[in-house]
């Protein structure tokens, strides 16, 4: 038992270590954000793909409560849509976005060489859980949100004992017409999940999935709708949003797969050409602060600060076996799997 625990923990730790380069020392100490300057600027525009609109609005409202006089404009959509929007802005030479939060780490790898991100270390960056520190050695983007992709199911249609316990079981023919997934062309979560499944089980995994006719949505949160409606029975879904919906009384449950739940680590960055640099810095710092983690817990998202307990019914990430592709695999993989997905599924 002890050995198993050790193996699990070290597997988790090494998976997390894969994304925390040891070169933390290069991160520069940042100046504290200028609250007065931020208040003069009066607003901050946040492009985010993290969590769902409700949670994003919750964070925005909490920010406005702490700093009255600074308005948080929240634009929440799926990762590829947000990225498209930002690319469009950049092509038009327009600086609309102040803080960019995507769930596709590849976006940051693509954009960083163009020098569009501000290099700055928020004071709160030192307080996040060690596993989430140091994502970018140059301090241009930081982890501000984490989540898990698990196997989710509709309790009123299937018993927990019958639900697949590992990812390959999800493609079993007995689940024909009963599975729901998102689309990697929209969602960063789904894109990362597809990359990881391809890595572990090859693209045959998706040929098998196609054979059982899954319902394909857009966001990974679409799976929650599909399960709620009873249209589908099981899904590769987001732990947090599913639990959030279950807490409202919907018959939803979560299973943590034995071969590992997918750990999503989502960064945020400040745009260098931001029109509200002080407000942006303040907001970025806020994202890594205690108020935000408390909002996360309220909406069943995982907190990124140690010492804050997750919501009832959600397991702390440190206790779950997690798997994750490397940053390079995500960066090259997501565009590839989007194309492969379209060829296989036709949409």
């Amino acid at each position, binding site marked *: 038992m002890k050995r198993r625990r050790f193996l699990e923990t070290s597997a988790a730790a090494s998976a997390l270590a894969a994304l925390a380069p040891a070169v933390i020392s290069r991160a520069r100490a940042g100046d504290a954000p200028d609250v007065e300057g931020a208040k003069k600027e009066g607003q901050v*525009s946040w492009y985010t793909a993290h969590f*769902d*609109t*409700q949670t994003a*609005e919750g964070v*925005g*409202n909490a920010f406005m409560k702490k700093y009255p006089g600074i308005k*948080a*404009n*929240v*634009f*929440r*959509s*799926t990762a*590829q849509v947000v*990225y*498209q929007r930002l*690319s*469009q802005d950049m*092509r*038009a*030479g*327009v600086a*609309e976005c102040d803080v960019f939060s995507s769930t596709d780490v590849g*976006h940051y790898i*693509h954009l960083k060489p163009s020098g569009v991100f501000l290099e700055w270390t928020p004071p709160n960056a030192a307080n996040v859980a060690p596993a989430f520190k140091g994502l970018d050695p140059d301090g241009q983007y930081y982890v501000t949100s984490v989540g898990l992709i698990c196997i989710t199911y509709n309790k*009123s249609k299937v018993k927990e004992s019958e639900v697949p316990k590992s990812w390959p079981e999800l493609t079993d023919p007995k689940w024909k*017409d*009963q599975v729901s997934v998102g*689309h990697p*062309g*929209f969602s960063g979560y789904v894109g990362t999940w597809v990359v990881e499944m391809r890595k572990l089980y090859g693209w045959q995994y998706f040929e098998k999935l196609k054979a059982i006719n899954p*319902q*394909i*949505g*857009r*966001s990974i*949160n*679409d*799976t*929650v*709708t599909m399960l*709620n*409606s*009873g*249209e*589908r029975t099981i899904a590769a879904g987001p732990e947090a*949003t599913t639990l959030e*919906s279950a807490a*409202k*009384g*919907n*018959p939803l449950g979560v299973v943590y797969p034995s071969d590992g739940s997918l750990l999503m680590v989502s960064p945020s960055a400040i745009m260098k050409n931001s029109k509200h640099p002080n407000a942006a810095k303040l907001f970025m710092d806020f994202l890594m602060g205690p108020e935000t983690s408390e909002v996360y817990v309220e909406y069943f998202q995982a907190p990124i600060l140690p010492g804050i307990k997750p919501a009832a019914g959600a397991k702390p990430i440190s206790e779950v076996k997690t798997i994750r592709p490397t940053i390079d695999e995500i960066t090259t993989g997501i*565009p590839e799997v*989007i194309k492969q997905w*379209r060829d296989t*599924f*036709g*949409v």
Partner: protein
Amino acid sequence: MAELSPSLIPRAARLREPDGLRARLRRLEPAVVVWLLLIGLLLFLVVGPLLMLVVQSFQHEGGAGYTLENYFAAFTNKHHLEALENSLLLGAGVAALAAVFGVPVAWAVSRTDMPGKDLVRVMVLGAFVTPPYLGAIGWILLAGPNAGWINRIWMALSGAEHGIVNIFTFPGLILSIAVYSYPYIFIFTSAALDAVSSEMEDAAHILGSGGLRTTLKVTLPLVWPAILGGLIISFLEAIALFGTPAIIGLPAHINVVTTQLWQLFEYPVRAEVAAAFAMPLLGITAVLFWVQRRTFGRKSFVTITGKGGERRLIKLGNWRWLALGYTAFVSSISVVLPFLVLAQAAFSRAWGRGFSLGNLTLSNFHYVLVEHTTAGRSIIHSFTYAAATASLALLLALVVAYIVNRRLLPWSGVLAFLCVAPFVIPGIVMALGYYAAYASPPIRLYGTAALVVLAFTARFLPIAYTNSDAAMRSLNPEMEDAVRILGGGRLTVLGKVVAPLLRRSLIGGWILVFIPATRELSAAIFLTGPDTQVMSVVLYELSGEGNFEYVAALGGVLLVATVVIVAVSSRLVGRDFMLRRG
């Protein structure tokens, strides 16, 4: 007698001055200035972005140099071609089905003594104000293969293993769009039918034709321009929709042009290929437009004349129950059933729990109206932009329709084409054209309300124009000639005779633009900024996230507010004196 003294020369001759430029300018009608201004506006609204789009389709990625490679990339790709084919089929299917729904209902309401007409009109209005993507969600609840209510009831009643309807199919997609498109055909057809006096039907009866034959051979052909206009609008709207194909088409594995264009804007962005891919759609408009002109060029559809006319209703006898039944069927699938399931979700804590007292709540409304930072403001924005769009579009359309129908300028046909062309460009592509042309320096409209309103105006100009054109055709020039003979200029004609006579059509046209503008999604999704957020985008985003209760609540607010606004404006307008209502 070599010269006449000045007092003997007629006044008009004395006033004739030498032909200099200033002299000619002084003789210019004020109307011409207005024409020129409006033509300039049309160029800015339609030609500018279109031109940018065409230029872009020939550009290399990144901007430098010209090439045909975009066209190769766009049209040698199997997925792209399939998407194009799907779009065309979808458009044709939607237009046909919408006509099947709309024409009989319009005829029954306008020309027969079917009971319950006011209720029917309310139902049609309900279908019209419903955003297609909201209706699509309602339809998923009704006809999802496993959990749709229709299927559940069927399985319970008949003990079958599977349901009988599946919304996630091509016919399902067509149905879910057609039930919200048929109001266009209804409105055009019934407005035209309302104006047909019974004299021609009487003539047919006198000559021995029975009721149905008269209807099919005399009445309906008289309103053919209106029906065709409605068909074209339905077709074009269907191929330009983004929301419903994303919500229903995607799970059904149906890819259409709009969703394909969306994919071309994923990273890495291939805007140039997208521009090339959009070109055939432009060609389709040209063809449709040409067909319409050819079919109706010479024939006369004049029904509004200077002489009075009476419109009598056809007595259907027992057939009116059949008519009512059909109308009730159309209303229930478009309005009643989807609204029921959406209302259930709007008032539920968790709609998965079904109908139960413990599940009732108002908290969803509280969330969307109070807690959500952008939803409340987006409601106001949607309505203000829509009103501005409708006013601008209708003004422009009326003037252009007048110019075209009375042939006031050479090449007026080109103007007409420009007015109709934008509709075939999917909203996304139009938005990108606007983005490319006007968002960045030097014009810098990005993030402003003006950009949204202008793009919407261009997008809905075709509806306004088709409506104004059909209305203009029904007007016999004799009344305008009377005004001019009595000394009025063109503007007087427009303002004091044409507009009042066509007031019903114009108000109808305004509402026809206002309502789709409030729920426009595909153009809005690219052009709205944080300060100019609109409801359709907020709804679309919420729908992708499992927050179904909020979608239903916000959608409900949109619907109620729209209905109130429309009801108020209809009341204010009153009715046209010449057409007695039976």
